[in-house]
């Protein structure tokens, strides 16, 4: 029992490690091809990445990416490809910021209200794709990616002065009304030079625990994974696949709505230039790399944040900052390939072992009968 667990764990870790090693090798080759020293570049990244202010930055960025990864992972576990996390996150953050800026309540009501609005809006936006899939058979890939574009337009329309927008003093930037002080979440102050670690990191950790618990320790989680592995088998055992599709889209979307919360509640306190498009896609990479496992996704999110942090320093040292983009792209590609390689290897090993055991049994029998 213990031995099998060890081997499974080893195989599970092998794939992402393999992917990261491959991507470092490929990046090194690219650096050499452009006439640069690869190890100097890696050294710069490492030295800069472990600075204390870098650590703060990495934790803050990773908090956002972690939630994005979880949102995507919920869909993945059910074989649902929610590409719309990006739109759901921006819609959630935008409406949460608008509502939060419009009312002033005591903190213990204001913050939950903002979070609730974000989850509701994100969930509803994803729910549209869920309903389309169950009632009309529209692939959620198509529906969610279209909804991303619609989200951009909806926000673009509403985020105008005179609607929900608010011009800054220099008349150049539009954002929503700033949140009142009661809408600011606590931060961990790491000193003048290092900045703050977002207090939302605590909630992110709790979300990870909740994700693990719901998927692995509840009936709902079991149903969800069952549908992910075989829809027809799940249907036969009495699970309503349609209901599961809608529910998991809603949950994935609600989680996506939370992606913008660390930035909104801990830092920007308004919806403006602080909510770049593309975070949802980082979530896909992070979920893939972390194998939809709450701990794996956390490590992947930290790695991603580390890479982004160090890319600025690379540029500062006259390297092409695109190197980090190359590295991230190669990681995702090799992750997908590595999983397949490791999976096939695992199956082969399993078959060999079964074969050996059967052969041994047959031999034993022969010896007994002989």
């Amino acid at each position, binding site marked *: *029992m*213990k031995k099998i*667990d060890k081997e499974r764990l080893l195989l599970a870790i092998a794939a992402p490690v393999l992917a990261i090693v491959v991507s470092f090798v490929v990046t090194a080759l690219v650096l050499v091809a452009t006439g640069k020293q690869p190890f100097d570049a890696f050294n710069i990244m490492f030295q*800069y990445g*472990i*600075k*204390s*202010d*870098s*650590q*703060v*930055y*990495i*934790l*803050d960025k990773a908090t956002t990416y972690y939630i994005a990864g979880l949102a995507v992972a919920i869909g993945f576990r059910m074989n649902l490809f929610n590409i719309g996390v990006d739109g759901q996150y921006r819609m959630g953050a935008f409406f949460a910021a608008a509502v939060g800026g419009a009312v002033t309540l005591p903190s213990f009501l204001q913050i939950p209200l903002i979070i609730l609005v974000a989850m509701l809006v994100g969930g509803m936006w994803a729910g549209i794709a869920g309903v389309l899939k169950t009632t009309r058979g529209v692939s959620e890939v198509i529906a969610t990616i279209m909804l991303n574009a619609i989200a*951009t*337009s909806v*926000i*673009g*329309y509403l*985020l*105008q*002065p005179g609607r929900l927008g608010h011009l*800054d*003093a*220099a*008349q*150049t*930037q*539009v954002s929503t009304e700033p949140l009142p002080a009661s809408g600011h979440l606590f931060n961990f102050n790491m*000193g003048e030079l290092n900045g703050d*670690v977002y207090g939302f*990191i605590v909630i992110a*950790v709790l979300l*990870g*625990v909740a994700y*693990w618990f719901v998927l*692995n320790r509840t009936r709902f989680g079991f149903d969800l994974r069952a549908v992910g592995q075989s829809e027809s088998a799940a249907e036969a055992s009495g699970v309503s696949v349609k209901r599961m599709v809608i529910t998991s889209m809603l949950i994935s979307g609600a989680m996506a709505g939370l992606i913008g919360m660390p*930035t909104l509640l801990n*830092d*920007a306190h308004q*919806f*403006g*230039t*602080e*909510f*770049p*498009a*593309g975070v949802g896609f980082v979530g896909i990479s992070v979920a893939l790399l972390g194998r939809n496992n*709450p*701990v794996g996704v*956390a*490590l992947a999110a930290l790695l991603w944040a580390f890479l*982004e*942090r160090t890319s*600025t*320093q690379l*540029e*500062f040292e006259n390297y092409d*900052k695109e190197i980090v983009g190359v590295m991230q792209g190669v990681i995702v590609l090799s992750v997908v390939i590595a999983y397949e390689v490791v999976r096939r290897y695992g199956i082969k090993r399993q078959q060999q072992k079964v074969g050996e055991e059967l052969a041994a049994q047959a031999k034993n029998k022969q010896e007994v009968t002989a």
Partner: protein
Amino acid sequence: MRRVTKITAAGIASAVLALSATACGSSSQSDASSSGSSSGGLKVGIAYDVGGRGDHSFNDSAAAGIDKAKKGLGVTQVKELTAKTADTDADRETRLEQLADAGYNPVIGVGYSYATAMTAAAKKYPNVTFGIVDSVVPGKNVDSIQFTEEQSSYLAGVAAALKTKTNKIGFIGGVDIPLIKKFQAGFDQGVTDTNPKAKVTAQYLSHGSDLSGFADPAKGKEAAQGMLDSGNDVIYSAAGSSGNGAIEAVAGKTGTWAIGVDSDQYQDASLAKYKNSILTSALKNVDVSVYDLISSVKGGTPLTGTQTYSLAKGGVGLSYSGGFIDDIKTQLDAATKKIVNGDIKVKTTVS
């Protein structure tokens, strides 16, 4: 068994998080008060907006100022960094502080998106002079550089209205933010004041906080193609490097004109193929403002507060390269005069 290992794993993970959260080790930033007073030659740090040096437009206009300072002021050390589309304020602040910390002074942020980041950075590095283009940042050590783009856009509108044959004129904006609407407002007014029959169609490439519209030539080309297909024959794009795509599309159809923006795009080597389609460019002399700032820091009395570079001061204007608008110079000069002496008040918002 499995349950135990999972719980251990979760425990280890949270411990790792907690440990790294204590932020041990040294900060990459040295003590703020000590930096920024380096003697020796002038070290200029500049952080470009998305697209960076080589966008043939807004950023290149700032880069031209740096190049002039290298020649005219003997600046030898320049560090140039560029924004990414997915940046947050934390990234922008990092960029500015990296420069300030390494002893670069002045540190210039090209583009309004650096405003929030610079507010924080300027506080942390009180001995460094900062400069921001297109926004206003509080602080005694900040030079806020603003341009009256609506005035040059008005003149571009006059030129477009006099050159159009179909009475259909296009405007392509990078992102639908107030700054770019200022271009549209001036352009609209210039067209209608000159030729009331002409109609301006406006299109924006991206919206709100999505800044990709400033750095996507493919989108610019597509938008311009659409406008050409529906009969527009003069297209003005205020969209950073996306405008290059628009110019390319316009060059593909004879008898149509493109109006460039920020830099004199007729002179741009990479657009040389299309230069005979570039009617004029609405100049925004970011180079002048960048040069002024560097020169003031060199002189020992750094510029601070808000500097407005207007038509009257030569901060904005039209380019005459190629000679395509020489025939309408009298009308343009008349309009310029009226703007300068206040007879024409150019609007800054689209009605």
